[in-house]
């Protein structure tokens, strides 16, 4: 069952990916065939089987919630330099309001 154009656009939107019309035409059939292949799992007998979420068996590994201080020019500069766009001591981001 081929993915419809709407489905592809919906997935792209959820994944925050802009697809050109060429890309839509290109990825659509590929996604359809991959999903068809993995879809064979539908025929597997797994009723009543407990899902495995992690193979290590470790569950809810936590540590104490401790506040640490990151101070100093170097630390600050290191953190700020990770951003794509800076305005001095500020990080620039595109607007979050719908318009």
């Amino acid at each position, binding site marked *: 069952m081929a993915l419809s154009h709407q*489905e*592809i*656009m919906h*997935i*792209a*939107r*959820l*994944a*925050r*990916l*802009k*697809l050109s019309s060429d*890309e839509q035409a290109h*990825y659509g059939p*590929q*996604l359809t*065939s*991959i*999903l068809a*292949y*993995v*879809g*064979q*799992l*539908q025929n*597997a007998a*797994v009723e009543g*089987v*407990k*899902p*495995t*979420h*992690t*193979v*290590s*068996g*470790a569950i809810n*590994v*936590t*540590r104490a919630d401790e506040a640490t201080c990151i101070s100093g020019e170097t630390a600050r500069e*290191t*953190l700020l330099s*990770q*951003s*794509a*766009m800076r305005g001095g001591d500020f*990080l620039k*981001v*595109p*607007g*979050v*309001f*719908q*318009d």
Partner: protein
Amino acid sequence: MEVKNLTVRKIHEGLAKKEFSSVELTDAYLARIKKMNPSLNAFLTVTEDEALKEAQAADETNEARNAPLAGVPAAVKDVIATKGIRTTAGSKILERYTPPYDATVIEKLKKEGYVLLGKTNCDEFAMGGSNENSAFGAVKNPWDLSRVPGGSSGGSAAAVAAGLAPYALGSDTGGSIRQPASLCGVVGLRTTYGSVSRYGLIAMASSLDQIGVFSRTVDDAETVFNVIRGHDPRDATSIGSPPQKGETKRGCEDLKIGIPIEYVGKDWNAEGIEEGVKARVREAIAALEKQGAAVTMISLPHAPYALATYYILAPSEVSSNLARYDGIRYGGIEEIQSSAFVRDKSKRDVPHQSALIEWYEEMRARGLGAEAKRRTMIGTYALSSGYYDAYYKKAQQMRTLLRQDFENAFKEVDLIACPTSPTVAFKIGAKANDPLSMYLADIFTVAVNIAGLPGISLPCGFAPAPDTQQGSLPSKGENKREGVPLPVGLQFIAPAFKESALFSVGKFYQSVTDHHLETPPALSSSSYEVTSS
């Protein structure tokens, strides 16, 4: 100084005896990289200055007397964070990223006094079986430059095969160490899930990823593994385990090896495995049988579902792990500087979208490659409302069944053996238009990751590629090189936290064979030339 045949052990002994210095050694490797990397594209970043400084420090402290990796040069796959050194994960979206911290494995290696030669090329975000998905160009197989080295850790595999580093770190989520090791004729170790910290490993699929080792010998892989393993409080999935030491045996009398019938078929008649691969792997297993191993066919009943399970679990976790790449964090992409992105509100599909969302969509479209997009979309679909139960949950249930299959098999046998890859190295571009055929390259490796087990690929001989075959295949026992001889890999799988069993059989196998001593012929001449078709 000739370095291409050196191993970690030989280097350690040479340094301890002061036969050469780490600086001389590092100089020699750097010169080799300078000469050959333009043709191989194995390294994305060569850390020449840092390497020489580290080598000098190693020579001064002379830790080589005690620490097996002190002063020993290494290459590191570009998915592992190295402080102050560009780390790209093979992706354009990280082209401006310099990690402010070291991965735990790097911290451990630094403590040992290792020398970093550089960061190796890989498929983008470790997704691929050929290293053709890198945003920085494909890696070439040192045995035949028109062919792939395998992936996703193609750069690390090629570097070790070409003698550009005595060992390299890689990562293996679905076979990304074992498969390129097989295609490049080197040892590739995938570790038990949880045995090596993932802190600082750029996450692809968090329940499947593990850092592992490429080397020429199993002995070296064991040495490096014992340095990088260990519980790490910064990785909540890591588990402590004792050091793993392979025994040096005289034979295999008490070794029980099982071959999954679902992989090779009854009497090895499975389609899809090249004849040359079958021949070499069967010869290797026969060699162990001659030394006393008991070889039987075993069953992993759910193995036919492993690939489908993997290609639901991995893309799902990928879609989640790649969500952080928004074009704002991690330095963004180069085009930001030129402000090439201009919003065109008249062309939008969604009215009243925020600039931020449009930014995400645009930056990710430009920064992520095709395979990353494909897997993100598959994963997004599988996890989306209405589909979670049908895909992801089912895959997690199949995961339980696959683990049980292995547990049951290991009640009968000590180790499982099979080909690592169904084929030898294929031509660059051969699978470019068929993602599904690329996924099939992982058919013998993915179940191991799903079950969280350790696995190793060992060089077990050579076979010509079917697409260059002239005349007949070399017959059993004959290792004549006709056509283009390409490496074949033998895979062993052990129970969880039993890397020692892999090391034992591997060291023994390498004591009675010499495939791992072969080096690519094209690189033997002192003036390196491109020779193959």
